[in-house]
């Protein structure tokens, strides 16, 4: 990777005795940045690393924290290369700063992959400057000096803290070339680092969006129409007379109840009645009809074609065919949607709250209000989960529009019912697979058609085993609906992964093959002689598969029924073996073994959390989650009807990581896609019943 000095790092003037290196975490290669300014008085900093004379290091973490642990992982990398003691580091959340950050968002499990090199360079550059400062002071050659835990050590036992070297170091030119630590010398990377927000969380500090309180702020809740419906009229006469109610206004088919406190707004809201037009709005039966039509149409989009699928199928000795289906589901982060907006008379806007994409919130609000983006300031808050839901800024737009109408700072709060009933759901999809096997049980033809409802391309046409199979045809059909959909943790693959991995289990069985060996054979083929282009690295696939088979005692556990799956997504590889056992006459998933290759593990504690969390998430939703639609209205809308997995329903999980030192890749999502498949296959092994539909338990 190339990175020039000027495009990477800039030194700033001293202020209050601190050494500030503005480092651009997100600067694209080759692009020049202007001098980084650190102006204390505005309260807004650019990305920077500051070391004050006491040796305290402050790192601003730009990406929104949603529970993926980025606010801990990023600074770990900088601190490692800077060579400081982790306990001397203080991490703060940066607000939206489009001038100095790129990719200041949470999504796609892409943050570490994107920033790894930039973070290392930021730390290593500063470290080098401290060495230079010390060597000048001691009049020794810089190459004879070392660093350790925030100190420079000289050849004759000299020792100076970074803090004491701040004044000199800050006047040095920024070095153009730096060397990185050898990974065997890592002190922090790869170890267990606790979340930097833990203390705030366990003591109940107001760090979430829902906790935001600003002077003069009112509270609002919004009644949203059924999907596809138009608001005809509403009656808020009673509500307006109720205590604490400030206003009831309508915009864009919605009715907002504005008041002084949450409870007063909730009570008043219950008295508001809304009338909508009637029409043929989405119901479950509509969706089934669209799936049927989508499966029959000759207008599907061809996503990938290798060889001649139809001819190969015709000459197959055996054909396996199956249909899989997944429903709409809600993200249901524990913190329901909420957002604060203050559209002020002077034309400026303050937005604050939980969003995965603050920059798009800024842009969308600026365009809604027809003002310059620079007038919109965005403060980031910690997010009580999101799982993709907070990639859609509908909540920020609602808050801004309402504030502009009522001319007051307002926090719009969604009840759980609003959140589940007014979602940007995971799209529903149906998949049809066909496999043609030759006389020896080898798959020679593979077909997939994915029909999604507002899913775009519901397939991922380059997914393994594509690349290892001679004749492939992958097609997609998108049916358009008024039900709003969007990315849900591991978009598309969160349900496609289950369907593919469950179908491949059928293929193995029909061909008389072991599911693990069958995949290893395909990967050998993909490696030596790939069919068309492949997007995965066969060797990395092979390694996670082999380790998972070994660590799970694949098919060597008496009384235990195992299911296998493996998936490549977000540039990481995860192989899983799920164990099912019959408990009280019922098949139950009791254990999951997961082997992950995400390259270098930056924070082992956080990494384990992501793997276990994603498996529990994938399992819970595969077992229980389903939203129904009736005339444009979703149900259920709260946890009494919409079942989330609980602590007494989880399997034990062993999470292993491949130790290969490759640049780190994503971890927030990759363990989820293989989960539905591993547990479906284990449950099949236990019951001999294939599970063709999520949720498995209805």
């Amino acid at each position, binding site marked *: 990777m190339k990175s020039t000095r000027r495009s990477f790092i800039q030194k700033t003037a001293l202020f209050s005795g601190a050494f500030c290196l503005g480092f651009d975490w997100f600067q694209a290669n080759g692009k020049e940045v202007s001098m980084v300014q650190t102006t204390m008085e505005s309260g807004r900093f650019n990305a920077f690393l500051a070391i004050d004379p006491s040796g305290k290091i402050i790192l601003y973490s730009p990406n929104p924290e949603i529970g993926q642990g980025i606010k801990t992982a990023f600074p770990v990398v900088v601190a490692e290369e800077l060579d400081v003691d982790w306990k001397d580091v203080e991490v703060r959340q940066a607000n939206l700063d489009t001038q100095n950050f790129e990719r200041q968002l949470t999504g796609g499990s892409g943050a570490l992959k994107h920033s790894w090199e930039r973070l290392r360079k930021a730390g290593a550059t500063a470290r080098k400057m401290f060495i230079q400062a010390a060597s000048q002071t001691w009049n020794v050659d810089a190459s004879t000096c070392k660093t350790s835990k925030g100190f420079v050590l000289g050849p004759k036992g000299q020792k100076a803290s970074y803090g004491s070297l701040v004044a000199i170091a800050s006047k040095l030119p920024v070095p153009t070339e730096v060397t990185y630590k050898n990974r065997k010398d890592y002190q922090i990377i790869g170890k267990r680092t606790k979340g930097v927000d833990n203390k705030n969380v366990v*003591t109940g500090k107001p760090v979430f969006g829902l906790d935001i309180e600003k002077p003069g702020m009112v509270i609002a809740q919004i009644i949203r129409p059924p999907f596809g419906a138009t608001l005809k009229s509403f009656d808020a006469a009673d509500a307006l007379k109720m205590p604490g109610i400030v206003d009831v206004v309508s915009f864009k088919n919605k009715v907002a109840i504005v008041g002084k406190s949450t409870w007063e707004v909730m009570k008043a809201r219950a008295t508001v009645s809304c009338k909508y037009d009637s029409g043929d709005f989405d119901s479950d039966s509509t969706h089934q009809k669209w799936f049927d039509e989508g499966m029959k149409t000759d207008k599907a989009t061809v996503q990938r074609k290798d060889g001649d699928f139809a001819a190969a199928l015709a000459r197959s000795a055996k054909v396996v065919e199956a249909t899989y289906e997944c429903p709409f589901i809600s993200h249901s982060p524990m913190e329901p949607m909420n957002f604060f907006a203050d559209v002020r008379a002077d034309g400026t806007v303050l937005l604050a709250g939980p969003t995965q994409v603050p920059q798009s919130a800024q842009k969308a609000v600026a365009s809604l209000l027809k003002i310059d983006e620079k007038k919109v300031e965005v403060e980031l808050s910690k997010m009580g989960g999101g799982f993709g839901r907070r990639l859609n800024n509908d909540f920020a737009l609602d808050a801004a529009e309402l504030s502009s109408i009522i001319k007051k700072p307002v926090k719009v709060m969604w009840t759980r019912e609003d959140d589940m009933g007014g979602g940007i759901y995971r799209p529903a999809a149906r998949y049809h697979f066909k496999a043609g096997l030759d006389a020896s049980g080898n798959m020679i033809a593979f077909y997939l058609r994915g029909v999604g409802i507002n899913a775009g391309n519901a397939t991922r046409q380059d997914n393994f085993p594509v690349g290892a199979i001679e004749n492939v045809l992958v097609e997609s059909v998108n049916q358009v609906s008024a039900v709003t959909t969007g990315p849900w943790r591991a978009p598309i693959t969160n349900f496609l992964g289950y369907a593919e991995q469950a179908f491949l289990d059928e293929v193995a069985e029909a061909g008389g093959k072991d599911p693990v060996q069958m995949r290893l054979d395909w990967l050998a083929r993909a490696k030596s002689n790939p069919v068309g282009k492949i997007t995965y690295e066969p060797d990395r696939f092979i390694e996670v598969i082999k380790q998972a088979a070994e660590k799970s005692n694949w098919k060597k556990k008496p009384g235990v029924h195992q299911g296998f799956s493996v998936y490549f997504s977000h540039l990481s590889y995860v192989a899983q073996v799920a164990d099912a056992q019959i408990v009280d006459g019922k098949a139950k998933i009791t254990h999951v073994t997961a082997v992950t290759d995400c390259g270098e593990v930056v924070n082992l504690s956080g990494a384990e959390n992501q793997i276990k969390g994603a498996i529990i998430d994938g399992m819970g939703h595969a077992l229980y989650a389903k939203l129904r639609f009736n005339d444009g209205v979703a149900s259920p809308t709260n946890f009494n009807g919409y079942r989330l997995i609980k602590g007494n329903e989880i399997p034990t999980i062993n999470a292993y990581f491949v130790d290969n030192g490759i640049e780190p890749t994503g971890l927030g999502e990759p363990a989820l896609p293989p989960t539905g498949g591993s547990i479906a296959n284990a449950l099949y092994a236990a019951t001999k019943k294939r599970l063709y539909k999520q949720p498995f338990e209805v």
Partner: protein
Amino acid sequence: MSLDIDPNTPLLWALRDHMSLKGTKYGCGIAQCGACTVWVNGEATRSCVLPISAVANADITTIEGLSDHGDHPVQVAWDELDVPQCGYCQAGQIMTAASFLKKKPNPSKTEIVDGMSGNICRCGTYHRIQEAVKLASEIASKKKTKSTVKKSA
């Protein structure tokens, strides 16, 4: 402490909106998730469905009041084992765990699982929650031994 608000106001919203105690969280409003768990007279209770009229003379403890310096054994264990992911459910989990441990200072694994399974964690931190309850019980019993020793000395 007196509040001049509608007596039907759920304790959750009285705490959050009128007393500026935002540590107690809203998750469902219908006693299903446990995010709003506080102690009423020492008992873990879901504050989202409890009108303030019902707690007129009660002793209420929220996450903010669990310990003076964030050093209740449950809080220490939660940090030590790095339990939180997004963290939103954790105040409710901690209040549930701390109350559970008062009744069962040396719980078995099954008792911990049962005692903690009423609280939802959407991020799936359940394994570490269960491990942290165990650790908290160990921290608490060590503390107790220490203070007993001190007293008798």
